[in-house]
C-alpha cells in the first residue's frame, strides 16, 4: 500500500533513506523548512537552503520515483532575531514561483518568546497575502501546551481559514485543543520527544480519524524515516481495517495538501 510522508527533513537524510522509503511504499514526501541544528550565519544561508529544497531535493527524490514538495519559512529557532528573520522572509516571495512549493511552514514557536510570536504573525500574514496553506511547528516538551495555545489564539486573531492550517507535533494534551478549533492536526512519530506509534493510534482512536495526518519528521536527530509505515503496521496489529489505514496515511494528507495550488500528484 502506498503512503504519503507529509513532514520529513530529507536534507538531513542519506540517499539510502530515500531508497528505503521508496521500498516501503512512499509516493510523496513533503519537506518543511526548519532549523539545521545550528544557526545560519547570514540570510544568504537560507537562499542556498531554499534552492536545496526547491531544486536539489526534488531531483534526488525523483530518482526513487517519489514526488517531493516543500514548505518555506524561517523556523522559530532562528526567528528570535527579528531583523535577521525579516531579511530571510523577504526572499520567500521569489521562491513561491517554484513549482513544488506548497505553502508557508514550518512556522511556529520554540520557547514562546515575544519575538518568535511577532515573526510567526508576519509569516501568517505572508501566507494570507499569497493565499497559501500553513504548516505549524509546536514547541517541544514543557513548552508545547503554552505554545499551542498562543498559536491558536494568534491564528484566530488573524482570521485564517482554519481548514488550510495544520498544527503539527500534537500530543495527548494538545490534540483536542487543535481539532476542536477546526484546525488540522499532525502527529509526529519521533522516538524520544514526541510520540510512539502506539500513542499515535491511541490519539486516532480518541480524537477520530478526521483532519489528522501522521509523519516521521525525520531530521538530523534520533528519528526514523520509516516511522509512518511502521505505525501503519501497528494499526494492523490493533485491528484497524485497510480503509482506515488508507485514510490516515493517504486520503487525509491528499485532502489537506490538495488545497495547495502547486500540489498535483499523479493519482496512484
Amino acid at each position, binding site marked *: 500500500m502506498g503512503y504519503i510522508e507529509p513532514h520529513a527533513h530529507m536534507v538531513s537524510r542519506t540517499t539510502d533513506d530515500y531508497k528505503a522509503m521508496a521500498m516501503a511504499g512512499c509516493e510523496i514526501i513533503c519537506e518543511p523548512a526548519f532549523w539545521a541544528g545550528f544557526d545560519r550565519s547570514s540570510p544568504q544561508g537560507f537562499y542556498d537552503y531554499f534552492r536545496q529544497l526547491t531544486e536539489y531535493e526534488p531531483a534526488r527524490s525523483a530518482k526513487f520515483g517519489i514526488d517531493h514538495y516543500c514548505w518555506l519559512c524561517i523556523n522559530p*529557532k532562528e526567528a*528570535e532575531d527579528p531583523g535577521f528573520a525579516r531579511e530571510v522572509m523577504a526572499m520567500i516571495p521569489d521562491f513561491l514561483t517554484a513549482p513544488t512549493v506548497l505553502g508557508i511552514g514550518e512556522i511556529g514557536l*520554540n*520557547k*514562546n*518568546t*515575544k*519575538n*518568535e*510570536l511577532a515573526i510567526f504573525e508576519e509569516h501568517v500574514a505572508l501566507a494570507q497575502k499569497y493565499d497559501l496553506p500553513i504548516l505549524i511547528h509546536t*514547541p*517541544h*516538551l*514543557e*513548552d*508545547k*501546551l*503554552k505554545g499551542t*495555545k*498562543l498559536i491558536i489564539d494568534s491564528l484566530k486573531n488573524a482570521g485564517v481559514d482554519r481548514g488550510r492550517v495544520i498544527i503539527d507535533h500534537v*500530543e*495527548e*494534551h494538545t490534540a483536542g485543543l487543535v481539532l476542536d478549533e477546526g484546525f488540522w492536526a499532525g502527529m509526529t512519530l519521533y522516538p524520544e520527544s514526541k510520540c510512539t506509534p*502506539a*500513542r499515535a493510534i*491511541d490519539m486516532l482512536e*480518541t480524537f477520530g480519524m478526521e483532519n489528522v495526518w501522521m509523519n516521521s519528521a525525520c531530521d538530523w536527530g534520533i528519528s526514523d524515516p520509516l516511522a509512518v509505515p511502521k505505525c501503519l503496521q501497528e494499526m494492523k*496489529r*490493533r*485491528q484497524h481495517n485497510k480503509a482506515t489505514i488508507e485514510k490516515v496515511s493517504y486520503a487525509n494528507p491528499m485532502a489537506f495538501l490538495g488545497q495547495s495550488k502547486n500540489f498535483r500528484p499523479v493519482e496512484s
Partner: protein
Amino acid sequence: MPDRNDILDLYFMDARSKLIDIAAFLDRVDRHEGDTDFRHAAFLDAMEALKNPKGKSRAQAVLESLSDHTVEPIEAAGTKGAAGAYEG
C-alpha cells in the same frame, strides 16, 4: 476492535519493562550523591498525576503536569532547548 486482554497481549510486556526502568531510574537517582534539580520533583509530581488523573486521560495528565502553564510570551529565549519539565 481488540478487547482489553488483546491490548494486554500487545503491550503488557513492553509497559512492564518500561515500568521497571522507571523504578530503577528513581533508585539510581537516590543512590548517587548531590542535590537534584527541578526535574526530579517534576517527575515525582507527574507520577502522582498518573495515579490521580482527575478525569483526564493519564497521558494528558502527565503531559500537563510537566508543562509550563503560564500564558504570556516570555521576553527572550535563554536557550533553544527544552528540559522536559517546567522549572517555574
